[in-house]
Protein backbone atom coordinates (compact mmCIF):
# COMPACT_ATOMS: atom_id res chain seq x y z
CA UNK A 1 0.00 0.00 0.00
CA UNK A 2 1.42 3.39 -0.92
CA UNK A 3 1.61 6.19 1.65
CA UNK A 4 -1.32 8.17 0.29
CA UNK A 5 -3.61 5.15 0.33
CA UNK A 6 -2.56 4.40 3.89
CA UNK A 7 -3.40 7.93 5.00
CA UNK A 8 -6.71 7.94 3.13
CA UNK A 9 -7.75 4.58 4.59
CA UNK A 10 -7.00 5.70 8.13
CA UNK A 11 -8.83 9.00 7.75
CA UNK A 12 -11.87 7.22 6.31
CA UNK A 13 -12.36 5.46 9.65
CA UNK A 14 -13.06 8.86 11.20
CA UNK A 15 -16.19 9.34 9.09
CA UNK A 16 -19.51 8.19 10.53
CA UNK A 17 -22.97 7.41 9.29
CA UNK A 18 -24.89 10.55 8.29
CA UNK A 19 -21.86 12.85 8.48
CA UNK A 20 -21.52 15.85 6.20
CA UNK A 21 -17.90 15.84 5.03
CA UNK A 22 -15.79 18.18 2.93
CA UNK A 23 -12.62 16.82 1.35
CA UNK A 24 -9.86 19.17 0.27
CA UNK A 25 -8.19 18.81 -3.10
CA UNK A 26 -5.33 16.35 -3.60
CA UNK A 27 -4.73 13.60 -1.06
CA UNK A 28 -7.93 14.19 0.96
CA UNK A 29 -10.04 13.42 -2.12
CA UNK A 30 -8.85 9.79 -1.92
CA UNK A 31 -10.61 9.36 1.43
CA UNK A 32 -13.99 9.03 -0.31
CA UNK A 33 -12.90 5.66 -1.73
CA UNK A 34 -12.44 4.00 1.65
CA UNK A 35 -15.54 4.92 3.66
CA UNK A 36 -16.35 1.78 5.71
CA UNK A 37 -19.22 -0.34 4.40
CA UNK A 38 -22.57 0.50 5.96
CA UNK A 39 -21.77 4.12 6.65
CA UNK A 40 -23.58 6.63 4.47
CA UNK A 41 -21.52 9.79 4.31
CA UNK A 42 -22.62 13.00 2.53
CA UNK A 43 -19.76 14.64 0.70
CA UNK A 44 -20.01 18.36 0.12
CA UNK A 45 -18.25 20.23 -2.63
CA UNK A 46 -17.98 23.86 -1.53
CA UNK A 47 -18.92 25.17 -4.97
CA UNK A 48 -22.45 24.16 -4.08
CA UNK A 49 -23.50 20.53 -3.77
CA UNK A 50 -23.98 17.92 -1.10
CA UNK A 51 -24.21 14.27 -2.08
CA UNK A 52 -21.43 14.42 -4.65
CA UNK A 53 -19.64 11.31 -5.92
CA UNK A 54 -17.08 10.41 -8.57
CA UNK A 55 -17.85 11.13 -12.25
CA UNK A 56 -19.85 8.64 -14.29
CA UNK A 57 -18.65 8.08 -17.84
CA UNK A 58 -21.20 9.41 -20.29
CA UNK A 59 -22.97 11.53 -17.66
CA UNK A 60 -20.34 14.22 -17.27
CA UNK A 61 -21.95 17.65 -17.39
CA UNK A 62 -20.52 21.16 -17.48
CA UNK A 63 -22.92 22.18 -14.71
CA UNK A 64 -21.90 19.41 -12.32
CA UNK A 65 -18.32 19.82 -11.18
CA UNK A 66 -16.12 19.86 -8.10
CA UNK A 67 -14.27 22.85 -6.69
CA UNK A 68 -11.50 22.31 -9.24
CA UNK A 69 -13.96 22.40 -12.13
CA UNK A 70 -13.70 18.65 -12.83
CA UNK A 71 -16.78 16.53 -13.55
CA UNK A 72 -18.44 14.76 -10.63
CA UNK A 73 -21.69 12.90 -10.15
CA UNK A 74 -24.53 13.37 -7.69
CA UNK A 75 -26.07 10.58 -5.62
CA UNK A 76 -29.83 10.25 -5.13
CA UNK A 77 -30.81 12.70 -2.39
CA UNK A 78 -28.18 15.26 -3.37
CA UNK A 79 -28.94 18.96 -2.91
CA UNK A 80 -27.44 21.93 -4.73
CA UNK A 81 -27.21 25.47 -3.39
CA UNK A 82 -25.47 28.81 -3.82
CA UNK A 83 -22.12 29.84 -2.32
CA UNK A 84 -23.72 31.73 0.56
CA UNK A 85 -25.54 28.62 1.78
CA UNK A 86 -22.56 26.39 1.00
CA UNK A 87 -20.41 28.41 3.38
CA UNK A 88 -23.33 28.87 5.74
CA UNK A 89 -23.19 25.09 6.20
CA UNK A 90 -19.43 25.27 6.75
CA UNK A 91 -19.22 28.35 8.99
CA UNK A 92 -22.47 27.61 10.82
CA UNK A 93 -21.21 24.37 12.35
CA UNK A 94 -23.24 22.05 10.12
CA UNK A 95 -20.19 20.41 8.56
CA UNK A 96 -19.20 17.38 10.62
CA UNK A 97 -15.73 16.82 9.21
CA UNK A 98 -13.31 18.57 6.91
CA UNK A 99 -10.22 16.75 5.69
CA UNK A 100 -7.48 19.06 4.45
CA UNK A 101 -3.89 18.84 3.32
CA UNK A 102 -1.18 20.72 5.19
CA UNK A 103 2.11 22.50 4.67
CA UNK A 104 2.90 22.85 8.41
CA UNK A 105 1.24 21.83 11.64
CA UNK A 106 2.61 23.05 14.96
CA UNK A 107 2.58 22.17 18.66
CA UNK A 108 -0.47 24.30 19.27
CA UNK A 109 -2.32 22.36 16.59
CA UNK A 110 -2.29 25.33 14.22
CA UNK A 111 -2.37 24.57 10.53
CA UNK A 112 -0.68 26.46 7.71
CA UNK A 113 -1.79 25.27 4.31
CA UNK A 114 -2.49 28.14 1.94
CA UNK A 115 0.67 30.00 1.02
CA UNK A 116 4.44 30.11 0.93
CA UNK A 117 5.35 33.80 0.90
CA UNK A 118 7.32 34.77 -2.19
CA UNK A 119 6.88 31.34 -3.74
CA UNK A 120 3.28 30.21 -3.94
CA UNK A 121 0.29 32.47 -3.36
CA UNK A 122 -2.72 30.52 -4.59
CA UNK A 123 -5.13 32.15 -2.14
CA UNK A 124 -6.96 30.51 0.72
CA UNK A 125 -10.05 29.50 -1.27
CA UNK A 126 -12.38 27.89 1.24
CA UNK A 127 -9.65 26.61 3.59
CA UNK A 128 -9.92 29.34 6.24
CA UNK A 129 -13.68 28.95 6.53
CA UNK A 130 -13.38 25.17 6.62
CA UNK A 131 -10.80 25.09 9.41
CA UNK A 132 -12.65 27.78 11.38
CA UNK A 133 -16.12 26.33 10.97
CA UNK A 134 -16.08 22.54 10.71
CA UNK A 135 -17.01 20.54 13.81
CA UNK A 136 -13.94 18.38 13.28
CA UNK A 137 -10.82 19.27 11.31
CA UNK A 138 -8.59 16.43 10.16
CA UNK A 139 -5.26 17.13 8.50
CA UNK A 140 -4.18 14.44 6.05
CA UNK A 141 -0.60 14.88 4.87
CA UNK A 142 2.79 13.34 4.39
CA UNK A 143 4.79 13.49 7.60
CA UNK A 144 7.73 15.13 5.84
CA UNK A 145 8.43 17.00 2.63
CA UNK A 146 11.85 17.23 1.00
CA UNK A 147 13.40 15.59 4.05
CA UNK A 148 11.95 18.10 6.50
CA UNK A 149 9.23 17.40 9.00
CA UNK A 150 5.95 19.22 8.29
CA UNK A 151 5.16 18.96 11.99
CA UNK A 152 7.01 21.83 13.64
CA UNK A 153 7.34 23.69 16.95
CA UNK A 154 5.73 26.79 15.53
CA UNK A 155 4.43 27.45 12.03
CA UNK A 156 6.65 29.81 10.03
CA UNK A 157 4.12 29.98 7.19
CA UNK A 158 0.96 32.11 7.46
CA UNK A 159 -1.72 30.30 9.46
CA UNK A 160 -4.98 29.11 7.98
CA UNK A 161 -6.78 29.60 11.29
CA UNK A 162 -6.00 29.96 14.99
CA UNK A 163 -8.44 27.12 15.65
CA UNK A 164 -6.66 24.00 16.88
CA UNK A 165 -7.20 21.10 14.48
CA UNK A 166 -8.61 17.87 15.87
CA UNK A 167 -6.49 15.15 14.30
CA UNK A 168 -3.46 14.74 12.07
CA UNK A 169 -2.99 11.62 9.98
CA UNK A 170 0.33 11.08 8.22
CA UNK A 171 2.13 8.16 6.61
CA UNK A 172 3.91 7.60 9.94
CA UNK A 173 1.43 8.39 12.67
CA UNK A 174 -1.87 9.62 14.02
CA UNK A 175 -1.43 12.65 16.25
CA UNK A 176 -4.02 14.54 18.28
CA UNK A 177 -3.29 18.15 19.24
CA UNK A 178 -4.36 18.64 22.88
CA UNK A 179 -4.13 21.26 25.62
CA UNK A 180 -0.83 19.75 26.75
CA UNK A 181 0.64 19.34 23.26
CA UNK A 182 0.79 16.87 20.40
CA UNK A 183 -0.35 13.42 21.51
CA UNK A 184 1.07 10.51 19.50
CA UNK A 185 -1.79 8.02 19.44
CA UNK A 186 -0.97 5.61 16.64
CA UNK A 187 2.01 4.55 14.58
CA UNK A 188 1.73 3.23 11.03
CA UNK A 189 2.22 -0.52 10.55
CA UNK A 190 5.95 -1.29 10.75
CA UNK A 191 6.88 2.15 12.08
CA UNK A 192 8.36 2.54 15.57
CA UNK A 193 7.76 5.35 18.05
CA UNK A 194 11.44 6.23 17.74
CA UNK A 195 11.10 6.64 13.97
CA UNK A 196 8.11 8.94 14.39
CA UNK A 197 9.95 11.06 16.96
CA UNK A 198 13.08 11.23 14.82
CA UNK A 199 11.02 12.46 11.88
CA UNK A 200 9.03 15.08 13.81
CA UNK A 201 10.19 18.65 14.33
CA UNK A 202 8.00 19.15 17.39
CA UNK A 203 7.63 17.72 20.88
CA UNK A 204 5.43 14.59 20.95
CA UNK A 205 3.66 13.13 23.98
CA UNK A 206 3.44 9.36 23.57
CA UNK A 207 -0.05 8.17 24.49
CA UNK A 208 -0.25 5.46 27.18
CA UNK A 209 -2.79 3.83 24.83
CA UNK A 210 -0.49 3.95 21.81
CA UNK A 211 -1.56 1.46 19.14
CA UNK A 212 -0.85 0.49 15.57
CA UNK A 213 -2.90 2.40 13.04
CA UNK A 214 -6.05 0.43 12.08
CA UNK A 215 -6.88 0.54 8.38
CA UNK A 216 -10.20 -1.26 8.13
CA UNK A 217 -13.48 -0.24 9.80
Amino acid sequence: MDEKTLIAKRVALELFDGDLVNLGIGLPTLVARYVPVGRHVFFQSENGILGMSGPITGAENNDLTDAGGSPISALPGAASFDSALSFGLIRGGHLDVTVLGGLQLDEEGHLANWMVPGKMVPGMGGAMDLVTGAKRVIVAMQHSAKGESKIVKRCTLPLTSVRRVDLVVTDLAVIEPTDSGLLLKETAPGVTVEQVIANTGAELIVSPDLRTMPLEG
Partner: protein
Amino acid sequence: MKNKLISLEDAVARIPDGASILFGGFMAVGGPTRLVDEIIRQRKSGLTIIANDTARPHQGIGKLVVEKLVAKVITSHIGLNPDTQKQMIAGDIEVELVPQGTLAERIRAGGVGLGGVLTPTGVGTTVEEGKRTVEIDGKTFLLETPIKADFALLAAKQADLYGNLTYALTARNFNPIMALAGATVIAEAEDILPVGCIAPDAVMTPSVLVDHIVTARPR
Protein backbone atom coordinates in the same frame (compact mmCIF):
# COMPACT_ATOMS: atom_id res chain seq x y z
CA MET B 1 -28.53 5.50 7.93
CA LYS B 2 -30.74 6.38 10.89
CA ASN B 3 -34.43 6.67 9.98
CA LYS B 4 -35.44 10.30 10.37
CA LEU B 5 -39.16 9.59 10.10
CA ILE B 6 -40.63 9.42 13.60
CA SER B 7 -44.08 9.71 15.14
CA LEU B 8 -45.58 13.04 16.07
CA GLU B 9 -45.66 11.96 19.73
CA ASP B 10 -41.97 10.97 19.74
CA ALA B 11 -40.97 14.18 18.02
CA VAL B 12 -42.64 16.43 20.56
CA ALA B 13 -41.57 14.25 23.50
CA ARG B 14 -38.00 15.33 22.73
CA ILE B 15 -38.84 18.95 23.59
CA PRO B 16 -38.32 19.76 27.28
CA ASP B 17 -40.29 22.40 29.19
CA GLY B 18 -38.55 25.75 28.94
CA ALA B 19 -37.07 25.03 25.52
CA SER B 20 -36.42 27.77 22.98
CA ILE B 21 -38.12 27.04 19.66
CA LEU B 22 -37.97 28.65 16.24
CA PHE B 23 -41.31 28.24 14.45
CA GLY B 24 -41.55 28.53 10.68
CA GLY B 25 -44.62 30.28 9.35
CA PHE B 26 -46.11 33.69 8.68
CA MET B 27 -49.58 34.22 10.09
CA ALA B 28 -49.58 30.43 10.50
CA VAL B 29 -49.03 29.93 6.74
CA GLY B 30 -46.09 27.55 6.48
CA GLY B 31 -46.23 26.83 10.19
CA PRO B 32 -46.12 23.31 11.69
CA THR B 33 -49.79 22.91 12.69
CA ARG B 34 -49.67 19.32 13.89
CA LEU B 35 -46.51 19.84 15.94
CA VAL B 36 -48.15 22.85 17.60
CA ASP B 37 -51.25 20.81 18.48
CA GLU B 38 -49.12 18.02 19.88
CA ILE B 39 -47.11 20.48 22.02
CA ILE B 40 -50.43 21.57 23.50
CA ARG B 41 -51.53 17.97 24.06
CA GLN B 42 -48.26 17.19 25.83
CA ARG B 43 -48.47 20.50 27.78
CA LYS B 44 -44.90 21.64 27.12
CA SER B 45 -44.60 24.90 29.02
CA GLY B 46 -42.37 27.85 29.79
CA LEU B 47 -41.38 28.00 26.12
CA THR B 48 -39.43 30.74 24.40
CA ILE B 49 -40.88 31.00 20.93
CA ILE B 50 -39.27 32.80 18.03
CA ALA B 51 -41.42 33.45 14.99
CA ASN B 52 -42.43 36.19 12.61
CA ASP B 53 -45.73 36.77 14.45
CA THR B 54 -48.02 35.13 16.99
CA ALA B 55 -50.77 34.58 14.38
CA ARG B 56 -54.33 34.72 15.64
CA PRO B 57 -55.54 33.29 18.96
CA HIS B 58 -56.94 30.08 17.52
CA GLN B 59 -54.46 29.63 14.73
CA GLY B 60 -50.97 28.09 14.62
CA ILE B 61 -48.62 29.18 17.39
CA GLY B 62 -51.26 31.70 18.49
CA LYS B 63 -52.76 28.75 20.35
CA LEU B 64 -49.59 28.24 22.39
CA VAL B 65 -50.02 31.75 23.76
CA VAL B 66 -53.71 31.22 24.52
CA GLU B 67 -52.85 27.97 26.30
CA LYS B 68 -50.32 29.88 28.45
CA LEU B 69 -47.40 27.66 27.43
CA VAL B 70 -45.20 30.57 26.44
CA ALA B 71 -42.83 32.53 28.71
CA LYS B 72 -41.16 34.66 26.06
CA VAL B 73 -41.74 35.65 22.44
CA ILE B 74 -39.20 37.09 20.00
CA THR B 75 -41.21 38.33 17.04
CA SER B 76 -41.93 41.20 14.66
CA HIS B 77 -45.71 41.38 15.04
CA ILE B 78 -48.33 40.55 17.66
CA GLY B 79 -51.06 42.83 16.31
CA LEU B 80 -53.49 40.10 15.31
CA ASN B 81 -53.25 38.13 18.54
CA PRO B 82 -54.87 40.14 21.37
CA ASP B 83 -53.92 37.36 23.80
CA THR B 84 -50.21 38.09 23.29
CA GLN B 85 -50.79 41.78 23.94
CA LYS B 86 -52.96 41.05 27.00
CA GLN B 87 -50.40 38.67 28.56
CA MET B 88 -47.61 41.10 27.76
CA ILE B 89 -49.37 43.98 29.51
CA ALA B 90 -50.18 41.71 32.47
CA GLY B 91 -46.49 40.80 32.66
CA ASP B 92 -47.18 37.10 32.13
CA ILE B 93 -45.22 36.93 28.92
CA GLU B 94 -42.04 38.71 27.84
CA VAL B 95 -42.13 40.11 24.29
CA GLU B 96 -39.09 41.22 22.31
CA LEU B 97 -40.20 43.07 19.18
CA VAL B 98 -37.75 42.86 16.28
CA PRO B 99 -38.14 44.40 12.82
CA GLN B 100 -39.02 41.63 10.40
CA GLY B 101 -35.98 41.99 8.19
CA THR B 102 -33.71 42.18 11.22
CA LEU B 103 -35.36 39.06 12.63
CA ALA B 104 -34.61 37.22 9.39
CA GLU B 105 -30.96 38.34 9.40
CA ARG B 106 -30.45 37.53 13.08
CA ILE B 107 -31.76 34.00 12.61
CA ARG B 108 -29.72 33.57 9.45
CA ALA B 109 -26.62 34.90 11.25
CA GLY B 110 -27.16 32.33 14.00
CA GLY B 111 -27.53 29.59 11.43
CA VAL B 112 -24.54 30.44 9.26
CA GLY B 113 -22.08 31.18 12.06
CA LEU B 114 -21.82 34.96 11.88
CA GLY B 115 -21.21 36.91 15.09
CA GLY B 116 -23.73 39.50 13.98
CA VAL B 117 -24.79 41.79 11.18
CA LEU B 118 -24.91 45.55 10.75
CA THR B 119 -28.28 46.87 9.66
CA PRO B 120 -29.56 50.40 9.03
CA THR B 121 -33.06 49.36 10.16
CA GLY B 122 -34.05 50.83 13.52
CA VAL B 123 -31.25 53.40 13.79
CA GLY B 124 -32.54 56.38 15.80
CA THR B 125 -35.68 54.53 16.92
CA THR B 126 -36.56 52.63 20.09
CA VAL B 127 -35.10 49.52 18.44
CA GLU B 128 -31.65 51.05 18.92
CA GLU B 129 -31.91 51.01 22.74
CA GLY B 130 -29.22 48.91 24.39
CA LYS B 131 -27.50 48.10 21.11
CA ARG B 132 -24.04 48.92 19.83
CA THR B 133 -23.83 51.13 16.77
CA VAL B 134 -21.07 50.96 14.18
CA GLU B 135 -20.08 53.60 11.65
CA ILE B 136 -19.18 52.37 8.17
CA ASP B 137 -18.15 55.05 5.66
CA GLY B 138 -19.91 57.71 7.73
CA LYS B 139 -23.21 55.80 7.90
CA THR B 140 -24.56 54.44 11.18
CA PHE B 141 -25.67 50.83 11.58
CA LEU B 142 -27.01 48.77 14.46
CA LEU B 143 -25.04 45.72 15.46
CA GLU B 144 -27.63 42.97 15.64
CA THR B 145 -26.65 39.68 17.25
CA PRO B 146 -27.44 36.12 16.13
CA ILE B 147 -30.48 34.14 17.24
CA LYS B 148 -30.27 30.39 17.72
CA ALA B 149 -32.61 28.03 19.50
CA ASP B 150 -32.80 24.54 20.97
CA PHE B 151 -35.31 23.51 18.31
CA ALA B 152 -36.59 24.61 14.93
CA LEU B 153 -40.04 23.32 14.01
CA LEU B 154 -40.76 23.63 10.32
CA ALA B 155 -43.56 22.94 7.86
CA ALA B 156 -42.54 21.61 4.47
CA LYS B 157 -44.46 20.73 1.34
CA GLN B 158 -42.22 17.73 0.58
CA ALA B 159 -39.61 15.81 2.53
CA ASP B 160 -37.56 12.90 1.30
CA LEU B 161 -36.36 10.28 3.76
CA TYR B 162 -32.92 11.89 4.06
CA GLY B 163 -34.64 15.09 5.17
CA ASN B 164 -34.36 17.23 2.04
CA LEU B 165 -37.23 19.72 2.09
CA THR B 166 -39.21 21.86 -0.33
CA TYR B 167 -41.73 24.56 0.50
CA ALA B 168 -44.57 25.96 -1.63
CA LEU B 169 -45.01 29.63 -2.53
CA THR B 170 -45.50 31.91 0.49
CA ALA B 171 -45.37 28.97 2.91
CA ARG B 172 -41.59 29.08 2.54
CA ASN B 173 -41.02 32.35 4.50
CA PHE B 174 -38.84 31.78 7.60
CA ASN B 175 -38.54 27.98 7.29
CA PRO B 176 -35.25 27.74 5.33
CA ILE B 177 -33.31 30.09 7.62
CA MET B 178 -34.72 28.53 10.78
CA ALA B 179 -33.56 25.13 9.51
CA LEU B 180 -30.03 26.50 9.92
CA ALA B 181 -30.47 27.91 13.41
CA GLY B 182 -32.12 25.14 15.44
CA ALA B 183 -29.89 22.72 17.38
CA THR B 184 -32.53 20.06 16.67
CA VAL B 185 -34.65 20.49 13.56
CA ILE B 186 -38.02 18.78 13.19
CA ALA B 187 -39.94 19.13 9.94
CA GLU B 188 -43.60 18.35 9.44
CA ALA B 189 -44.16 17.52 5.77
CA GLU B 190 -47.29 17.17 3.65
CA ASP B 191 -45.68 14.68 1.27
CA ILE B 192 -43.02 12.22 2.34
CA LEU B 193 -41.07 10.79 -0.56
CA PRO B 194 -38.37 8.23 -1.29
CA VAL B 195 -34.82 9.53 -1.64
CA GLY B 196 -34.19 10.77 -5.18
CA CYS B 197 -37.71 12.09 -5.76
CA ILE B 198 -36.67 15.69 -5.13
CA ALA B 199 -34.23 17.00 -7.75
CA PRO B 200 -31.07 18.58 -6.28
CA ASP B 201 -31.96 22.02 -7.66
CA ALA B 202 -35.45 21.87 -6.13
CA VAL B 203 -34.21 21.22 -2.59
CA MET B 204 -34.70 24.31 -0.43
CA THR B 205 -33.39 22.86 2.83
CA PRO B 206 -30.60 20.27 2.46
CA SER B 207 -31.09 16.96 4.26
CA VAL B 208 -28.19 17.30 6.67
CA LEU B 209 -29.90 20.18 8.49
CA VAL B 210 -32.97 18.11 9.37
CA ASP B 211 -32.95 15.72 12.33
CA HIS B 212 -36.49 14.37 12.37
CA ILE B 213 -39.41 14.23 9.95
CA VAL B 214 -43.05 13.78 10.86
CA THR B 215 -46.00 13.51 8.53
CA ALA B 216 -48.41 16.43 8.37
CA ARG B 217 -51.16 14.01 7.38
CA PRO B 218 -52.83 11.97 10.09
CA ARG B 219 -52.34 8.29 9.17
